[in-house]
């Protein structure tokens, strides 16, 4: 298989405009371009949709309203009503991930969220932010999170290390989940796309057999669209649950 046709070639970062400030490479890459595109699309849809503020919403306004209500309900149900202060952050997070994932489904585009450094950056912000909020609200009492109430003392010796480990694994599992889903999905699409091309090259019977992997590619594309939404949802809902933990430790 040629280097350009490897299933992983689509994740290569390419410099579009090279910049170098004080020895640090800050080039504009294809990842930057698609992240900015995601931001622009999200801003455009939301501001344009809410411009008319009609009583009977237009299509664009419905999109903006439904997405606002969706995230607002999610935050209220999972993090509690005192989490309204953090709603703008969670909404931004949800929309940015959703747009990055969704724009990545356009053929020949690039998915920024298929890179661990992008997702880990977001997960690290959530993790550090939640830890700071927890300590700011409860002081040293935040450590109660690691010692659930009503547990016998003997069990504590096992439970506390487990809770501490699971707390520090959060940013890793949060980022790897999103990155692996995006990377695996796009790799799978490319592999099945390769089957279509190589089977279609067989004489006479080729196009008939190639219809099978082609149908698979269509089905997988549908699944990937669902996953693109679902992963944005999961990332945000887990952030909500972590925030809930930070506001009510030791329940």
């Amino acid at each position: 298989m040629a280097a350009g046709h490897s299933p992983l070639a689509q994740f290569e970062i390419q410099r579009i405009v090279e910049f170098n400030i004080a020895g640090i490479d800050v080039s504009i890459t294809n990842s930057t371009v698609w992240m900015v595109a995601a931001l622009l699309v999200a801003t455009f849809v939301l501001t344009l949709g809410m411009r008319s503020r009609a009583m009977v919403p237009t299509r664009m306004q419905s999109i903006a309203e439904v997405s606002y209500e969706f995230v607002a309900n999610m935050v209220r149900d999972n993090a509690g009503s005192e989490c309204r202060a953090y709603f703008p952050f969670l909404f931004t997070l949800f929309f940015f991930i959703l747009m990055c994932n969704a724009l990545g489904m356009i053929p020949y585009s690039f998915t920024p969220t298929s890179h661990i450094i992008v997702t880990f950056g977001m997960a690290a912000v959530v993790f550090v932010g939640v830890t700071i909020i927890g300590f700011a609200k409860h002081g040293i009492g935040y450590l109660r999170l690691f010692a659930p109430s009503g547990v016998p003392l003997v069990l504590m010796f096992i439970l506390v290390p487990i809770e501490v480990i699971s707390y520090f694994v959060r940013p890793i599992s949060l980022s790897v989940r999103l990155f692996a889903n995006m990377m695996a999905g796009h790799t799978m699409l490319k592999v099945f796309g390769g089957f279509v091309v190589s089977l279609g090259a067989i004489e006479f019977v080729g196009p008939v057999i190639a219809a099978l992997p082609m149908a698979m590619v269509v089905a997988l594309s549908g699944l990937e669209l669902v996953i693109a939404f679902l992963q944005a949802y999961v990332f945000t809902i887990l952030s909500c649950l972590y925030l809930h933990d930070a506001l009510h430790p030791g329940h």
Partner: protein
Amino acid sequence: MEVEAAKLIGAGIATVALAGVGIGMGNIFGSFVSSALRNPSAQDKVFGNLLLGFALTEAIALFALVVALLILFG
């Protein structure tokens, strides 16, 4: 043993995690079907949790994929 051969075997063994994911997936959807049949009116409420459970379980399978890729190319 050759390092290359050991890498291939290791990557193959890493996919054993899929057995656990298969059990988990079957459990999630099986539980959903049985609960939806017992109480059809609760189906819409449970559906959100179903998707969440599906995504969380699927992620475990992808962790295995990442481990396998790390062994192969890392």
